[in-house]
């Protein structure tokens, strides 16, 4: 593993949301609908949704949202994390996820006081990603969700999660 790529973060706005589409199209086998992009662009929450810039250009992005789990309790749900192939292996993804976790620590007793865990869905065959979350951040493999994806094979996924509070 070579040294981490020095990146900067940038907000996702209606003016540049097209870049997110470009990154996602290059990274994921599934394509997200227009509503997904609209929601992110309009929300303009630069702590949960952000680009990773390297020397002025977008090389990756992470999109997260708050989801309710029960009465007044929430979880952070990672919708997408993508890094352009040419820039992988330089800890861009690690830095992006870490920045989300850092944000939680900052707001642990503030804005995110109702948040208990962070989680995501990952295709069962995506071993690299599973290893990434478990080994690097201590996520735990949860239930298997069958037929989560419609257009890709295998269609099943795991729920990966990490408890943020005891």
């Amino acid at each position, binding site marked *: 593993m070579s040294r981490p790529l020095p990146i900067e973060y940038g907000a996702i706005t209606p003016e540049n949301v097209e*870049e997110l589409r*470009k990154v996602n199209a290059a990274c994921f086998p599934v394509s997200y609908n227009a509503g997904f992009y609209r929601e992110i662009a309009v929300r303009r929450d630069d702590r949960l949704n952000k680009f990773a810039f390297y020397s002025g*250009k977008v090389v990756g992005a992470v999109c997260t949202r708050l989801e309710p789990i029960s009465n007044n309790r929430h979880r952070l749900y990672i919708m997408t994390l993508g890094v352009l192939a*040419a820039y992988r292996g330089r800890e861009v993804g690690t830095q992006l996820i870490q920045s989300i976790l850092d944000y939680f620590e900052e707001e642990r007793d503030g804005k995110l006081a109702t948040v208990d865990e962070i989680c995501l869905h990952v295709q069962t065959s995506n071993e690299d990603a599973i290893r990434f979350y478990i080994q690097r951040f201590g996520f735990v493999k949860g239930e298997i969700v069958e037929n989560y994806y419609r257009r890709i094979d295998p269609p099943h996924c795991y729920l990966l999660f990490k408890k943020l509070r005891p």
Partner: protein
Amino acid sequence: MSSAADSNPQAGQGRPLPKKESDLFRNVVKFYETKQYKKGIKHADGILKKFPNHGETLCMKGLTLNCLKKREEAHALVKLGLRNDMRSHVCWHVYGLLHRSDRNYNEAIKAYKQALRIDRENLQILRDLSLLQIQMRDLEGFSSSRLTLLQLKPNNKINWISYALGRHGTGDLEGALSVLDAFLNTQDSNSVERSRNFESSELALYRNDILEELAKQQSTTTTNALEQYQAAYAHLMEIEEIVVDRGCWMEKRARYEVHLGKYEEARTTLEQSLERGLTEDYRVHSGYMCALLEVDGTTYDEATLRGGKNGGSGTSGSSTDTLATIQVLSSEQKKRLLDVYQNELLPKYPKSQAVQRIPLTLLLSMDSEKELFRSGVDAYCRKRLIKGVPSLALDLSTFLLEEVDDETTASPGRYRRVTDPIDVKSHPTFCILLDLAKSYIVHLESINKFSPEDDDTTNEKQQQPSEETILWAWYLLAGLYELCGNYAEGMELTDKCLEHTPNAVDVYELKARLQKAAGDMDGAVTSLDKGREMDKQDRYINNLTTKYMLQAGQEEVALERIALFTKHEGNPEDNLYNMQCCWYELELADCLQSKKVWGKSLKKFGAVIKHFDDFHEDQFDFHQYCVRKVTLRAYRDVLLWEDDLFGQEYYGRAAEGIISIYLHLHDANNDPSQGGKGNDGRYGEPDYSTMTAAERKKAKAIARKKKKAAEKKLQQAAAVAEAKKAEEAAAAQKADGSGNNHHNNKKKRQAAIPVVVDNDPDGLELLKKDPLEEAKKYSAILSKSAPKRISTWLIQYDVSIRRGKGLMALQALYKARAIDAEDAGLFERTVDFCTKKDGIASKMNETAKQVLERQTLLLLEPSKSVKEFVGSAKEKIKSDPLTSLPFRAAVAAASVAHCGSSVADASTLVLDGGIDARGVSVDACRDVLETLRTMTKKDGSSKAECDAWIDVVKKRFPLIKNLA
């Protein structure tokens, strides 16, 4: 105005007004000056009730009405007033002011002069007159008006300065100096004018400029010139303490030192300039080289010209030009420079781009130093590839120089930039660059290093390639391919780049440029638009997309794109007009012209012409302001710039566009096959006659739809304008009512701008004008203002020959030949002229006829006839395989028309190697096809030549669309 009225308030056919009315009149003047126009009119009406024929009151009322945009009424009233009181200077003055507001300056000057005849010493009128005179460049008149003013008010600094400017303007440099000195001598040594401050500094530098101009006027070698430079130098030293513009002072100092042969001192001065932070200023570097090599003053002046332009037409230099890229130096000289740059400057300024770059330009042309150049440029590129510098290919392209063979000047030789793809491809420096870029890619792709010998450990971290470096290496190579015309290879690389990093906007831009050059304009638009999508706040890419869309003929989408960045209220096109957005209007006009929408195209070209007229008008504000603020050097620059205004490229494009449309209309009107009507789009409609029935139906449906939409828009616009007007009227009323005027001045001025509703948005009125008259008008302006551009004379020929002006046409050919004797357009016209000559001569008198005959023969020199002229051109093509494609086509056409060559024979001139010649572009290839078509049509032979050409072109430009 007020002083005029005060000194003789009761002027009026010798009969003074009664007390009450004369007070009223004074108020009228006061209200006019404070812009309370409605009140002014009320008071004027008060006088006119009793004295309906009082001339001065009528005039003042007229003048006030003019400010309320009632132009017609104003003119009538002022004329009436003037008739009633011809001996009043007030009436004449008002008459002049009215003409001035119409920008009818010559009439205004006449009126002012009449007023001055009655009241010789009226300061206000003299001042107004002098402003008009300088605006109209009546320099003698200006000078004498300013002299009168100076004599009347010798204690005013502005009058001294203005008179000095007047003398300077008439070319009387010594006179200007003595005026300035007379003024400065009246100031004692510790006055403000002689201490260190901005105004005194500007005045002193202005005086020094005049001294320098005096020195320049002397022929360079005479001792006289040396004396003058000595004087300028001495003065410069004298004023050192009061000059605040240190940069300019040092620039002048270095220049004088070189002219005086004080090279050591010049070197020190320039070193100080570098130390002050001018390390990236190539003019300073160029000067420094001159001082090191001890060149003469003239060379120094040329090498340090602002912007690095190396003069002459066509050979526009780049901003990185220095002595070493303008003029061929001996290898001793180069070695000397190299030594200083590498051993003195580089250690001192290791981060300076210019200092890193200049040694490369020195190594470049030394055959013995090929390897040094290679390793130097290698290091230069690596650094920039790691950093990610998109302009690297463009930067390197300035290294492609060739010596100009010019027998007329013996020594030293000069350099010219190589730009034609065919020349670039074979240029030795280019081969080195291409080789380097390719080897980077091979090694970056396999081992992520620039070369296998690179060691990870010894180099600093900054010099290691990163993930991104390969992207820039591909980008560089694609850029180099663009330079040498290998568009397909370039596009392959840009596609690789986009796969690697799909959101690198620079790549979209380069890809679009490559697609455009390869003939796929629509593809280029798509690429750019994709790049634009990623950052909708990027005005640059948005504008570029708009431009490409216009070039691809998509004017409606283009308007939508550009509208993203115009003001959001109102019509975007009006906003662009108000912002004087020339590039958009020119591109749109070109687009409409190619679609044969003549009227609207004329309208857009006309808009650009209007902007330039406004630029010319704008200088009016500076005549007073600059003198008051003593920014005299900048003011001189503005005046000289304005003198040259209509020679600017944008003006030339607009004027040539207008001329070419009018000439087309003229030809269509006189073409019997068109029934003399010239229907092609004359009334803003497409040419239906060439379409099939189905196409026609579709086209008409589209036209109907467009018309409807346009009408709707117009209605909306009118409604908005109406509402605005009402609002403004209300605002104006309110403002007028309130007593506090100063606060409302600005608002009022805005309100005074009328809402212009264009009654002729499609320019149909323009189509009714006499085409030749209009063409002549603009061609005359170009001949006067842009005599160094060859296109000026070619178009002047086109206009003159249609007007039957043989000698003017001939003169245009001579002028064009002096600029570039091997221009294809010139060749075509020369041949054309020879065939039309006899017809023209038959209408001339004997003397003119003889001149025409003799001069035509001289034009063909050394050939004796057209046939020989064409023949020698054919020889030239055969002996030089790189002879430009347009020239080949012109010769081929001429040899069929005038030398009895067969089409098959003539077209070999084009087909044999034409595609590998100079001047090959998609557009040129299309033009050639057109020429071949005309040739074969006349001959009645098969289309084999056209098909052969199409094949060749398609091979060279695989993306080309709609060729057949």
